[in-house]
């Protein structure tokens, strides 16, 4: 009990008895559902219990203190006793909600202590260990100092960005522990009038950063709020209907004719609206539409989403953008590139949700987006921000669907190009104007496919051959192969239908269909039937392009390895020559038809409608399908902060990116994993925020020497969140920095900016926030109960906060000479 080593332990997990009495071993009897001890025992019963324990301890000579807990567990009330070599120590606790004036100071406490021991004279040396805990709130200070800056950077949400920072101030606190270890209690004056206990003079300082457990941070909250909306089951239409009803209700008083006009204008939803924009669009608000987003803002958002639209060009505004981080760190994550339409959609949905009143506004925006997409499709205009020329299964489904729409638009362009323009050259140039992002190969294919009436071209060369039937749909002559039964005629490679691009959901359905068939013989035939469309199409086209051809000719082109040449003779491979195989059957069934006359494998009209009806989703799905991009944006935002601050955070970029990949690269989405992701992200954001505000704060003392030491110290506080001693206490350079930065005095700015603060001189009058908790430990060795008793150990612990005082006393008495 006399050891000062364990004074004021900080670990919050420590049992309160250990903290109050400095005990290492003790036994506590407490109530539990199993032993049915009622906390609310009467005082009499408590006394009986207590004396039983005293008896027990005395009989067993147990050196370990025994405690009895009583009253509400929250009050943490105990009584206890121990007996060692003829001394009995009684442990008692007082807990008062109102603090009597005389107990508020060391002198008052000292008086009680002395009274309890029964030693009036001050011959006995009483030692006191004192610790004041000062809560420093850097957030608050920072906020007060720079209100404009904060307002500017964090309070207004910008389109195309993700906010970063704590959602409220005081998201963390620095406990500054200032202590006076083992001082002579009588030498310290601490009364209501004057106190020697000035934290700025305390010999020992230590600090610890503690985060507010429930504090929220913007990136993490943004993603969480967004994800919560994925459960909503309303359709876009239900919101729009609601809007229209509201509108009707408002206008009932107005003229019937006007209502009619408005209805006809609004319900077919003029497709050209967003493109032709201002002129037509600005008419709308005149009707006092209860629209969630006013025209100006809506135009702004649409221009952001569709930067290639006339509207955007007209407005000529530039928006915030995200840049893909280096090293392809998000390669595995099924999201969409930073400059993609899907990505911008996610940010726009988030923006609209936050700024314009939630899901209603999102539904409204989404409807506009669908209209624009439909407009693009119907007019064969490509969409900026959709890469590739087929759905990339490594991206999210929304992006894949948009890629699919792009395929359809390209196909449409090619189609209308060939009918509109007579010459292939003309078409080529007109299409390449639109198709800036796609590969040349694709362009060529499409041209050929729709345009290819190759007869004209071929005739000059063909005229030497005798064509039995008029060949159709030729692409080019095969460089080497000649027809088996007509060796003078080249085999012509037909124009073929390209396999239809597939989004992952379609591919999956297809596989499911295959898996659903029986595995063996019968199923196999079914599976072949399901997949032979492409083969039959190729065969038809081949037959049409090569009149008089035979199956062998086809195999030689389509599957050359199945044509075996051996010592002069050549034949079909064994597997191809069997009768009744799928290949032979398909060949028999295939009619000679060029692809122009074939049923299309890929019907862009059907597919485009599919995409558009996919886009017409439930409101929850809007959030669900854009979530991957929003999360990616959140991470990129976090990474930016990580790059700009040289503080080590718990999770590195790669780990976070991996977590994101894991969430979205597979089909099974786990909310548990999602929570883990958010927790990790939040922990980083938390540290970054704390460090950021600390760094800003530390600028105040930039003029003092050893500023680097100070910033290092702050960084360490953030990084390991452990208690860190301030070597040299208040008078050390480090202490000076802290004093300056957390100074509550009026002249703080003047003091630090003058830069003449000398360490030797009396420090300028500063004032730290007043201590939140003051703790005292008084201890002495004195005879008790009588002067002739053997001296024994006494200890009293007192903890004062603004709300209450708790005193824990352990007083011993000599049993032999007592």
């Amino acid at each position, binding site marked *: 009990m006399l050891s000062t080593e364990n004074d004021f332990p900080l670990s919050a997990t420590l049992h309160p008895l250990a903290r109050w009495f400095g005990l290492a071993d003790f036994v506590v009897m407490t109530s539990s559902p199993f032993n049915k001890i009622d906390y609310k025992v009467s005082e009499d019963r408590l006394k009986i219990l207590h004396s039983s324990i005293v008896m027990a301890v005395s009989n067993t000579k147990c050196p370990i203190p025994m405690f009895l807990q009583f009253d509400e567990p929250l009050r943490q009330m105990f009584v206890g006793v121990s007996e060692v070599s003829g001394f009995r120590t009684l442990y008692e606790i007082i807990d008062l909600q109102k603090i009597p004036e005389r107990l508020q100071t060391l002198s008052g406490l000292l008086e009680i202590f002395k009274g309890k021991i029964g030693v009036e004279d001050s011959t006995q040396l009483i030692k006191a260990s004192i610790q004041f805990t000062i809560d420093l709130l850097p957030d608050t200070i920072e906020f007060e100092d720079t209100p404009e800056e904060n307002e500017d950077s964090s309070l207004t949400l910008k389109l195309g960005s993700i906010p970063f920072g704590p959602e409220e101030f005081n998201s963390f606190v620095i406990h500054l522990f200032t202590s006076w270890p083992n001082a002579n209690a009588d030498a310290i004056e601490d009364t209501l009038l004057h106190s020697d206990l000035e934290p700025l003079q305390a010999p020992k300082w230590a600090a610890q950063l503690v985060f507010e457990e429930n504090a929220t941070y913007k990136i993490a909250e943004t993603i969480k709020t967004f994800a919560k909306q*994925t459960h909503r*089951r*309303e*359709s876009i239409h*239900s919101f729009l209907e609601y809007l229209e009803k509201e509108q009707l209700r408002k206008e009932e008083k107005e003229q019937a004719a006007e209502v009619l006009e408005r209805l006809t204008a609004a319900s077919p939803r003029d497709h050209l609206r967003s493109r032709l924009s201002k002129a037509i669009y600005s008419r709308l608000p005149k009707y006092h539409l209860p629209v969630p987003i006013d025209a100006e803002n809506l135009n702004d958002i649409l221009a952001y989403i569709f930067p290639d639209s006339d509207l955007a060009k007209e407005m000529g505004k530039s928006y915030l953008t995200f840049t893909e981080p280096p090293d392809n760190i998000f390669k*595995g994550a*099924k999201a969409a590139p930073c400059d993609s339409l899907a990505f911008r959609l996610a940010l726009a949905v988030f923006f609209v949700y936050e700024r314009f009143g939630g899901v209603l506004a999102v539904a409204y925006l989404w409807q506009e987006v669908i209209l624009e997409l439909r407009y693009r499709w119907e007019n064969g205009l490509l969409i900026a921000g959709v890469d590739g020329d087929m759905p990339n*299964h*490594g991206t*999210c*489904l929304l992006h894949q669907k948009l890629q699919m729409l792009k395929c359809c638009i390209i196909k449409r362009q090619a189609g209308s190009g060939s009918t509109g323009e007579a010459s292939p050259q003309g078409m080529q140039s007109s299409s390449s104007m639109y198709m800036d992002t796609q590969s040349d190969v694709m362009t060529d294919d499409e041209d050929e496919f729709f345009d290819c009436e190759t007869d004209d071209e071929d005739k000059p060369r063909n005229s030497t051959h005798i064509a039995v039937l008029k060949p159709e749909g030729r692409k080019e002559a095969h460089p080497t192969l000649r027809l088996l039964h007509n060796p003078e005629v080249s085999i012509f490679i037909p124009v073929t239908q390209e396999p239809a691009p*597939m*989004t*992952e*959901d*379609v*591919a*999956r*359905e297809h*596989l*499911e269909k*295959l*898996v659903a068939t029986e*595995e063996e013989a019968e199923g*196999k035939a079914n*599976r*072949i039937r399901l*997949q*032979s469309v*492409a*083969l039959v199409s*190729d065969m038809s086209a081949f037959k049409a392009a090569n009149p008089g051809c035979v199956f062998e000719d086809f195999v030689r082109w*389509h*599957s050359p*390895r*199945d044509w075996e040449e051996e010592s002069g003779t050549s034949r079909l*491979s*064994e*597997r*191809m020559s*069997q009768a009744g*195989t799928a*290949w032979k059957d398909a060949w028999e069934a295939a009619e000679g038809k060029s692809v122009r006359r074939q049923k299309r494998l890929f019907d862009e009209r059907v597919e485009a409608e599919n995409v558009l009806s*996919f886009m017409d989703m*439930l409101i929850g*799905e809007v959030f669900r*399908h854009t979530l*991957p991009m929003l999360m990616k944006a959140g991470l990129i935002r976090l990474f930016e902060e990580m790059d700009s601050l040289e503080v080590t955070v718990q999770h590195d970029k790669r780990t976070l990116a991996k977590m994101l990949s*894991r969430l*979205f*690269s*597979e*089909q*099974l*989405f*786990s*909310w*548990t*994993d999602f929570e*883990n992701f958010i927790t990790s992200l939040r922990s980083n954001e938390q540290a970054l925020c704390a460090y950021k505000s600390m760094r800003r704060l530390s600028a105040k003392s930039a003029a003092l020497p050893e500023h680097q030491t100070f910033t290092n110290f702050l960084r360490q506080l953030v990084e390991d969140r452990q208690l860190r001693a301030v070597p040299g206490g208040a008078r050390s350079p480090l202490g000076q920095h802290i004093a300056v930065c957390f100074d509550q005095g009026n002249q703080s700015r003047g003091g630090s900016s003058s830069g003449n603060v000398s360490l030797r001189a009396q420090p300028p009058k500063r004032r730290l926030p007043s201590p939140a908790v003051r703790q005292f430990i008084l201890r002495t060795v004195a005879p008790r109960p009588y002067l002739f008793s053997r001296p024994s150990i006494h200890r009293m612990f007192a903890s004062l906060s603004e709300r209450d005082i708790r005193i824990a006393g352990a007083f011993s008495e000599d049993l032999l000479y007592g």
Partner: protein
Amino acid sequence: MAAGNGKWQKDAADQNFDYMFKLLIIGNSSVGKTSFLFRYADDSFTSAFVSTVGIDFKVKTVYRNDKRVKLQIWDTAGQERYRTITTAYYRGAMGFILMYDITNEESFNSVQDWCTQIKTYSWDNAQVILVGNKCDMEDERVISHDRGRQLADQLGLEFFETSAKENINVKAVFERLVDIICDRMAETVDSDPAVIGGGAAGVAGKAGTQRLTAGDGFQNKGAGQQCQC
């Protein structure tokens, strides 16, 4: 995985397996992919399997560390014209067997291309084994064992020479592939068990998971709209 987890999870309940791996056999036309698969799944061989149209599959359940692993092995058509179609199914595969024919130079030369296809279309963790098939036909061999090995090293793949006809190394290839998939899983699982659930298309009955991505939005939509009427 590209292939219907919803369904596979149901299977899991019905059919008692702990993991399900989707494997893909790819390579040029007539290098022996179908024969190889039939040898493994049915222990049979004929030189005249019908040339695969599109893709086809077989199922085999194996035991590994007391766990039942159901292998859904997809066999693909090797013809040039089928390349684009088959790549659409790469995404869900956890393992690839990339096959060439040791008696055919061209099939060996295509290995690099196939490898690029895997990199482009499959997911990052997919494991690949390079297999030189038809090693029973020593007389007609044009690709030496060393060349195969060298290429495998260069591409960072494991390598086997096999014969579906003589049943050489067929089982070994599959076992090795399952092993490296499991190893890879164990690596990632340390930090997060969910990866099995995701990547391997489902630890049976994994709690707390739900389909969020993928196309179920598409399926729900009809119902949702009806409610709104």
